[in-house]
């Protein structure tokens, strides 16, 4: 633990020292190839940043900075919007509240871990905004959080300003696992949990909405009575049904984990019947089979570039999924769902060009503007346009070349990752680490014996739920 605190404190100091000068001044990035994600690519372009916002973007000759502006010469470099990960489980202390099949009352914003090293690693891969979600163990999971990866800042400052609210739903194999004996949660003797089938998943969601409607009616009656000047007894507050009511009122957006075409249609059918909308189908690996129906519902699709075959419902996944959905008019994004892929979303986007023939701009939108739309944050982020947050990545080459890497990542004009700084810092960290180890050796036996930590039952991560995913080596 000490070691990691040491490293953290170093990173913090570095970030603050960088942050200090960027607070109010102007920054000009010039001579760059700017891939805007909204209006094409600008060669020999400049971006002027003022007070954390993009003040101007255009050709070098069209963008003028004040005399005191800090200038970044990006000759030979490419600038893209900060990358947005529409499906993450990073920076969380917990992922799955798996005790119940409906847990709409729990909130990921209450369990943000702002010291998760994955935040920094993802920044180093150009990712600036993530959507850490509840897990997929429940038919209706918890409420998600949207974070800006302001490494070194407290959790409250990472939470996206005026964060739109989203909630996780899950269909298919994962939510029905706890209903089957061969599930990863079942300790011996532990009772099975309903549902065990896709039929049961449909019912579980239906039941929750029907209950929420009855609950809303009770409150409506109560409020009407109050208005009439009566003194009625208030209905009992139910935080779970409050959340589902918010879905029906359009205040909480559904992001539904799904794989197979049949279950996608099931939820669309249920939504039409009960009067709610699905904002985004997550994973949606068979989205290409029912793209027409998803487009008609008006939902987005957030998928993997090339994951498949790790479980039965992923066996028909194809890497052309994002391209087919895009061509059918679905707002499509490519996400990570993993601490690894979230570090190289630009590579994941590039694969859709290979497998689906998308253009560079279409591919870039999959990890910038489109996930911003799916999360309803596109007025602030997702493209390089005047007035938007200065969340930017500078690559040392074309972001869709395998030989390129991010050099600088900034959020609201503040540099949170700079590869050159990172390389310099390594020597300092190594030196301090060595000194600490030597000091500990000298004091051997004189320190306090370490108390063993209490045995906590570990919760399952999404990777463990979906075992065999590529970021876990196959055993």
């Amino acid at each position, binding site marked *: 633990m000490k070691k990691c605190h040491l490293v953290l404190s170093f990173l913090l100091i570095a970030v603050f020292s960088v942050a200090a000068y960027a607070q109010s001044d102007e920054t000009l990035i010039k001579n760059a190839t700017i891939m805007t994600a909204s209006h094409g690519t600008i060669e020999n372009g400049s971006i002027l940043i003022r007070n954390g916002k993009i003040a101007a973007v255009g050709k070098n000759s069209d963008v003028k900075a004040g005399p005191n502006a800090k200038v970044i010469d990006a000759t030979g470099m490419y600038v893209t919007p900060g990358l947005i990960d529409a499906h993450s489980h990073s920076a969380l202390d917990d992922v799955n509240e798996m005790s119940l099949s409906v847990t709409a009352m729990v909130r990921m914003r209450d369990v943000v871990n702002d010291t998760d090293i994955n935040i920094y690693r993802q920044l180093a891969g150009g990712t600036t905004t993530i959507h850490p979600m509840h897990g997929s163990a429940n038919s209706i999971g918890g409420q998600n959080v949207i974070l800006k990866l302001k490494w070194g800042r407290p959790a409250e400052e990472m939470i996206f300003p005026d964060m739109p609210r989203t909630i996780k739903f899950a269909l298919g194999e994962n939510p029905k696992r706890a209903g089957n004996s061969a599930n990863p949660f079942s300790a011996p003797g532990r009772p099975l949990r309903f549902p065990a089938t896709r039929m049961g998943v449909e019912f579980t969601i239906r039941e929750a909405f029907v209950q929420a409607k009855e609950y809303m009616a009770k409150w409506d009656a109560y409020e009407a009575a109050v208005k009439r000047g009566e003194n009625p007894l208030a209905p009992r507050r139910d935080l779970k049904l409050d959340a589902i009511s918010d879905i029906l009122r359009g205040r909480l957006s559904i992001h539904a984990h799904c794989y197979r075409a049949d279950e996608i249609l099931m939820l669309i059918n249920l939504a039409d019947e009960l009067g709610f909308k699905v904002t985004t189908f997550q994973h949606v690996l068979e989205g290409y089979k029912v793209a027409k129906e998803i487009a008609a519902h008006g939902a987005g699709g957030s998928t993997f570039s090339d994951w498949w075959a*790790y479980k039965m419902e992923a066996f028909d996944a*194809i890497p052309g999924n994002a391209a087919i959905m895009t061509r059918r008019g679905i707002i499509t994004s490519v996400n990570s769902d993993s601490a690894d892929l979230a570090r190289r979303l630009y590579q994941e986007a590039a694969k859709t060009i290979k497998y689906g023939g998308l253009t560079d701009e279409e591919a870039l939108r999959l990890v910038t503007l489109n996930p911003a739309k799916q999360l309803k944050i596109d007025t602030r982020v997702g493209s390089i346009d005047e007035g938007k947050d200065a969340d930017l990545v500078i690559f040392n080459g074309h972001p*869709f070349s395998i030989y390129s890497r991010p050099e600088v990542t900034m959020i609201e004009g503040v540099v949170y990752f700079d590869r050159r700084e990172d390389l310099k810092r390594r020597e300092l960290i190594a030196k301090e*680490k060595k000194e600490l180890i030597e000091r500990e050796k000298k004091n051997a036996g004189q320190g306090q014996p370490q108390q063993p930590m209490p045995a906590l039952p570990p919760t399952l991560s999404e990777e463990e739920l979906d075992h065999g995913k590529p970021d876990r*080596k196959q*055993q």
Partner: protein
Amino acid sequence: MNKHRTFQFLFAFLLASFVAVLMIPSPRVTAQQAAVYAIRNARIVTVTGQTIERGTVVIRDGKIAEVGASVSVPGNAKVIEGRGLSVYPGLIDSGTTLGLTEVGSVQETRDTTELGDFNPHMRALVAVNPHSELIPVARANGVTTALTSPTGRLMSGQASLINLDGWTWKEMALKPSVALAMEWPAAAAGRFAAFLPPEATQNLAQQRERQLTALRQKLDDAKAYAQAKEAREKDKSLPARPTDFVLEALIPVVKGEMPVIITASSERDIKGAIELADKYKLKLILRDADDAWKVASTLKEKNIPVIIGPVTEVPRREDDDYDLQYSHAAKLYKAGVRFAFQTSDAAYVRNLPFQAGTAAAFGLPKDEALKAVTIYPAQIFGVDKLVGSIEPGKIANLIVTDGDPLEFKTNVKHMFINGHPVDLSSRHTKLYDKFASRP
């Protein structure tokens, strides 16, 4: 199906009589039909020799017959016009479970891990499903050859080098038993270690010691078994021993004829593996080996190669450099350690070129990245006389691309395995075509 194929061949044949440049018919060409192929006017990246900016490769009887700028196209050759295209040797993935697993979560489709700690007699090759849907997908980006390996045990079994085409696993086998795949016992309970009570940690340490003791015992037994066997071959009056399959399989290992591929990540485990190899004179290849760079000078001195990957794996320790895995190959290269890349999987073999390319984005020279998926693995697995470069006499495992095979935007246009053109369609391309055209 057969009729369909015959028709396609006839069609291709008819086409041939009208057009000088032939399309390769998509179904597999069998040995009887395979004749002579020539890829002409292409850029030829031989890997081991000079790149030929415009030249011809002639394929005959499954082998590379001729390569050069002024090679003439034989009259009976089927010609592939290579203008604007490049020829590379087929890529080699140095660690997969290809053919041994189909769907990750469905136990019935997994044949990677046999019961028990000691399975040196288990052979991957005999369990390879040549008709796995994963194989055509694996080929899509240029991989023609893969090491497929049992996993998950102290001694997991014999890894096999297979070509990714063939009607049977016998036809696929390039080298049936390349090495004994081993996994060094885990030092701790991974990320849950801190939550375990002290007794549990102690138990794990004890279990590890027990396993290592058993491992040394097994190797001692194998040496004794080999000696006894040799002695009896010379003197039949000595008592015969019943066959011990485990020890029998270990004879080539303790004689240093068959290498061991040891999966070991931490510095301590890597050092342990090296010590074991020294003591028993094992021919060691390290796999995973996240900390190999820390012992690079030893690895160079002892000429121990490292199979790296996945390059895209998240660094294990919180205080690791963010690019630890990305830049590992560059560090080993600078230190003079031999290395090759693996995807360590079955469904993601097609990402092998991107593994190598990502290492190049973080300091590895591009030509070294290419070598680490072609000639280096061929050398490490002792098949560099057969594959890994474009040289006359080698097996014709070739790809024809429209660019650098490590780049995302490059497409593989043609593939030859054992001199036969290989169909580049897969479950994925078929599903794509079907649903992209849904009305």
